């Protein structure tokens, strides 16, 4: 009864009945859980070897000196915190993630509602077009934005000049560059919010709206008292999930500004790349990455809570 048999409560089996049976039963149980274990071995290898182990390795690396010859404890972390550039990275990461996620959530919510109000036939077509930014790999679509923001050939500036406005140095001036990276991220990510909210909207039973209408609710009240409460969970999951992904973004900033001008648009991912890979200070780069961990872990715990709650709701 050692393996897998959590029951452990030994049933008072009458000794007269088939004494060989418990052994055979145990064999059966072992065979089944052994097979299950074998089936999960590849998964465990991937998770263990390429996620869990590198994580602990990162912690170890982050405590070495630049040439990786000496253990320096938390010096790398302390050094980073004392640098103004890194303080800017922390600030920009937060501005980038929060700003982009709020905008994405709002746009996604509005678009989902608007789409949901359309007759079913046209909905598909519009939805198809609105999801395109999400489908194009961001490393590819950011190239288009880069071109749109080009200092001398910017097609956006051409239009601005057309209406008499002065051209903008989109990627050259820190304020505009910060705006630009957020804009591109919003452009890429808003469709995801839209599609998640649309799925959630469709799962709200029509009877609830009919009941609310008969109870005298206005459109706004239906939104406030039916839609939002029913979607609360999905909204939370999507926002938290997007916060994680946006916070840890790399592609957009790397291609669009590469952290410039004057390191003003660096976020953790791109800064870790610059420090760890390009400048060759692996331990310092690892330390930059690890600064993300507390925030990510906190967000992950909340996502997990909400997803578990949701699956329980859907099961019950």
């Amino acid at each position, binding site marked *: 009864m050692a393996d897998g048999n959590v*029951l452990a409560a030994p049933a008072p089996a009458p000794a007269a009945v088939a004494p060989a049976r418990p052994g*055979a039963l145990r064999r059966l149980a072992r065979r089944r859980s052994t097979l299950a274990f074998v089936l999960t071995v590849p998964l465990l290898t991937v998770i263990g070897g390429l996620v869990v182990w590198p994580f602990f390795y990162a912690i170890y690396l982050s405590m070495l000196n630049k040439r990786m010859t000496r253990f320096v404890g938390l010096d790398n972390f302390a050094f980073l915190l004392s640098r103004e550039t890194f303080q800017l990275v922390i600030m920009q990461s937060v501005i980038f993630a929060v700003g982009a996620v709020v905008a994405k959530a709002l746009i996604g919510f509005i678009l989902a509602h608007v789409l949901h109000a359309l007759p079913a036939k046209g909905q598909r077509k519009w939805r198809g077009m609105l999801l395109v930014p999400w489908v194009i790999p961001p490393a590819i679509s950011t190239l288009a934005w880069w071109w749109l923001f080009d200092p001398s050939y910017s097609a956006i500036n051409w239009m601005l000049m057309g209406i008499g406005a002065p051209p903008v140095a989109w990627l050259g001036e820190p304020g505009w560059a910060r705006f630009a990276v957020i804009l591109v991220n919003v452009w890429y990510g808003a469709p995801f919010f839209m599609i998640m909210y649309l799925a959630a909207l469709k799962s709200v039973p029509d009877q609830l709206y009919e009941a609310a209408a008969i109870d005298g609710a206005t459109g706004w009240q239906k939104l406030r008292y039916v839609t939002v409460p029913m979607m609360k969970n999905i909204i939370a999951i999507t926002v938290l999930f997007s916060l994680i992904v946006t916070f840890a973004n790399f592609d957009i900033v790397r291609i669009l500004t590469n952290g410039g001008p004057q390191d003003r648009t660096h976020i953790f991912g791109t800064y870790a790349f610059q420090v760890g890979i390009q400048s060759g200070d692996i331990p310092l780069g690892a330390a930059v990455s690890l600064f993300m961990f507390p925030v990510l872990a906190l967000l992950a715990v909340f996502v997990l809570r909400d997803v578990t709650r949701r699956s329980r709701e859907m099961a019950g």
Partner: protein
Amino acid sequence: MAQVSLRRVVKEYEGGVQAVKGIDLEIADEEFVVLVGPSGCGKSTTLRMIAGLEEISSGEIAIGGMVVNDIPPRDRDIAMVFQNYALYPHMTVYENMAFGLTLRRFPKDEIRRRVENAARILDIGELLDRKPKALSGGQRQRVAMGRAIVRDPKVFLFDEPLSNLDAKLRVQMRVEIKKVHQTVRTTTVYVTHDQVEAMTLADRVVVMNQGIIEQVGTPQELYHRPATRFVAGFIGSPAMNMIPARLENGAGALRLRLPGDIVLPVPAERTQRYAPLAGGEVLFGIRPEHLTEPKNLDRPNIATFEAAPEVIEPLGMETLVIFSLQGNEVTARLDPAVPAERGRKMPFAADLNQMHLIEPRTGRVL
């Protein structure tokens, strides 16, 4: 073809909850046995242990004389029909029925012969190329049975197969199942919570309650000679009336004093049987069909009394009348021609040849 034996079979779940508490049952070859009881009585668990889908905590199950406790379902030579049919949604009807035979590497033409034979028995020959999605509930039910028939197993197991059908189809399929059994004569264990289904289908009915067997018997035995208060109340519809009463000794004969000072004489031939309870409290059990308007008064042991109806339910072929004896609801079955009016006293006749006395403490029917 085979008999099925259950010896002191126990099913205990994690945390020590016992779903089945040591049952003994012998099912003969070619017999149709129905396990019936309320939900949670252990009937499905018992069936699933016979199938090999649940491990047996203790005791043993034998099919065809061979103990099968450690034998996986596929080697027990059984077939099962599930409540939701469990048809494979991606396979046609033909493939669904052939699947078990294919896995056992039967030759192609043998499979075809068997499937077509089963399809003929069940009259689903035209459906063989359809997917389950394109079938009605009744057709799915037939396919599920066909899947069992083609295997020609030692035992058929049915787990509430009709409970997903509407009432009319259920009656029809009930007849169908009985016919199939009469054709293939395979030993059958059938689980249901519907006592009408149990009574109409079974050679023998096993009434289960809270993990134990209350009584095993033919439908007639269960109806006329229930062994326990539970069986008495479970079999028959509307359910048997059970009225608290006092068994009194008077002038060499026994009398029942019901609430409302109604006194009924106990038939003389039962005096000896009931004597030990004389002077005590009992439950007087009588089925509504034995509580009628006064008729056959010339026969022995028919007693009359008066009561005022509280609810009258005309059903067409009969009228149910519910009256109350000091808070104890009693149902009687009257001829629809008898005038009954709410609140007005009228005479009733009790056929005491069909009465039961239940010992309240043990729940035994005497």
